[in-house]
């Protein structure tokens, strides 16, 4: 996996990137509207629409062959990425490495956990995971699945219906890792989300992001083909406006004193429901950034 890793030097890249700053913030995209309250309303309506869209699939969320099949398959690469990313920070006791208790004692926050596909798997590796999501039905589904299928993990997992900014108020400098997986592409105000996420992170802790790139191949392959032709994801799940390029994410994180240490490109082979790492971030990518001391 490490062969795809790229180290970025934010200081060198910063100048040219700064010029691209305005384009990528949703706040600027809606700047034609008159008042900030109107803007806020629009954003809330949009968030509500996204939450509703995802809640529609709550009952089928854990069906491996259902609408979330690709998300189930994504665990195959994102769990090892997070696990090895945490190990690489040197905060894992070497006795735990290569055991199923590898994340023992690590406090992890998953922002936008849905019905807990990733949450449960991280808890199974010993981590203490908090999963927050805005969808009440999703959290209900997550809780019921946990108690039914993996009751032994109940003490390791805490689900909450809570927006991240609210969670950040009471959990400053609290987590060893924060995960924003397949969430950023559904959020209008990415800066606010990332800012609050980073605030909950201990210095030296890592934020892991997986999302879609904002490229033409991704739009054609992921949305046009994926949602409207092959039905790999439900129609209306992804929108061009909300997709974001890795350099933009990296630049936002730079402003929050988070240094990006890893960007891996990935792609999805729909014919065998398998994700794999590739040498290009044209389609999807995973990013790890470390909060500076």
């Amino acid at each position, binding site marked *: 996996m490490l062969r795809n890793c790229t180290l970025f030097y934010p200081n060198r890249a910063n100048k040219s990137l700064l010029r691209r700053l305005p384009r990528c913030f949703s706040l600027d995209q809606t700047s034609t509207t008159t008042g900030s309250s109107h803007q806020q309303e629009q954003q809330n309506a949009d968030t509500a629409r996204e939450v509703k869209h995802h809640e529609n699939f709550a009952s089928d969320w854990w069906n*491996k062959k259902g609408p979330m099949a690709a998300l*189930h*398959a994504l*665990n*195959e690469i994102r*769990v*090892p990425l997070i*696990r090895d990313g945490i190990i690489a920070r040197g905060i894992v006791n070497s006795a735990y490495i*290569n*055991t*199923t208790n*590898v994340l023992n004692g690590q406090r992890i926050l998953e922002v936008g956990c849905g019905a807990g596909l990733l949450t*449960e*798997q*991280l*808890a*199974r*590796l010993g981590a203490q995971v908090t999963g927050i999501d805005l969808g009440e039905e999703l959290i209900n589904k997550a809780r019921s699945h946990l108690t*039914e*299928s*993996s009751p032994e993990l109940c003490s390791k997992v805490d689900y909450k219906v809570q927006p991240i900014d609210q969670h950040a108020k009471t959990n400053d400098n609290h987590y060893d890792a924060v995960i924003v997986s397949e969430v950023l592409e559904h959020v209008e105000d990415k800066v606010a989300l990332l800012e609050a996420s980073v605030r909950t992170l201990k210095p030296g802790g890592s934020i892991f992001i997986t999302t879609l790139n904002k490229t033409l191949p991704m739009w054609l392959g992921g949305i046009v083909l994926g949602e409207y032709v092959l039905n790999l994801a439900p129609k209306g799940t992804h929108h061009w406006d909300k997709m974001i390029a890795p350099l933009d994410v990296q630049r936002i994180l730079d402003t929050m004193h988070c240094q990006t240490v890893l960007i891996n490109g990935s792609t999805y082979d729909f014919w*065998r429901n398998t994700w794999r790492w590739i040498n290009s971030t044209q389609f999807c990518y995973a990013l790890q950034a470390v909060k500076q001391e």
Partner: protein
Amino acid sequence: MLLMLRPKGASVAASQVRSLVKRLLATETASTPAEEHYDIIIGGGGMVGTTLAAALSKNRTLADKKVLLLEAAPEFKGFSASAPFHNRVSAISQSSIELFKAIDCWTHIEKARCKPVKQMQVWDANSDALIHFQHDNFASDVACIIENNLIIDAAYARIRDAAPNYKVLNKARIQCVSLPGKSGEHNTRVQLQDGRSFSCDLLIGADGANSVVRKQMGVDVLAFNYDRMSLVANVDLNIEEGCDNSVAWQRFLPSGPVALLPLSDKQSSLVWSTTVPHARQLLAMQPSEFVDALNEAFCRQYPRLEVADKALQALNAFFGHQGSQHQRQYPPRVCGVQERTRATFPLGFLHASSYVCNGAALVGDAAHRIHPLAGQGVNLGFGDVRELVDTLAAGAYAGFKLGDSQHLIKYERKSLARNVPIMIGVHGLHSLYSTQLSPVVLLRSLGLQLTENLPPIKKLFMKSAMG
């Protein structure tokens, strides 16, 4: 291609069986008390099942799992290296030996007894075609002949080391299995014929060609009998002092291949695949009669195909060899057969279209069964073991449940990709050599001789067959 192999109709019957089983289970389990839970239950304590348990116990990621091995036979009696050779032996390939080394079973086996094979000679009864398999300058062995019981003994030693997490239950026959899924159940539940029942995250079927686990999984299979039987026996050889018995011999007769695999300097194991009446006849013969029949099988002249011989001569001339007999050796004379070692078993082909489902997986003969002519059957099973342990360890280290089909499917993909070509190859060889039709004899002779004369092709063949 695999889709084509699925017989239609089998799935209907299977689903009926499953629904019946579910109803049975629902009524019976209501009364039983809470059952014991294991992470992994292995059904079947043969070579593959016990080796799998040993391999799991030696894996760092899986070492702390609770594992139960269910075996239908009474407790294993152990192995004595001073006892006469057992009649069930296997040709173990280099890659299987690597597996034994990795799980600390190899020293145990080497210390007892095993016979390395330096060279293999395979030849055709209907023409002059022959092929030798060996590594350059005999640098390494082609295979190793090991008694099945010794492999099981070595594996049990590792399983005992892993107690109390690893348990063996003898005289345990699986009655029925309920898989997780539709009924809202999250574990696999196993019920034994004596009424005991267990639950587990993953049930592994290592219970042979008539696998109960496979039937309960409702997997479609492609299976047929070859209408042939294999006769095994341990025979004494007439070998001069100082000569080394380290060549494996196999001659393709019109009725099937006859093979001698070295067991010691003076003894070899016979595997004679032939028609059912002939096998019965051989089994009933007096020892002296049997020895004569066997010696005749290796030396007798069969009607030859002249065209094939001429073509081979031309081919050999092209490659610059003098005549066709250039490298032919003959096996040593058999001078006796060990008492009570003669036994027969039927031959068949079986291919399971799927090796895994949620909560269960298949390994070894439960998933595939082939003709013994290439000695690949159990090696495929050991390949499954290696693949399955790696997959389970990677899955557990990524937080997957052990029985999660999302991850288990990786094992299936890798194993199918490795096993199916070998299965097709072995079945193809059987079909090719079970006829005396002239064009086929000509083609197979030319093919064999061409392989013999083209080292790169031969090496490729050896690599895929012997690891």
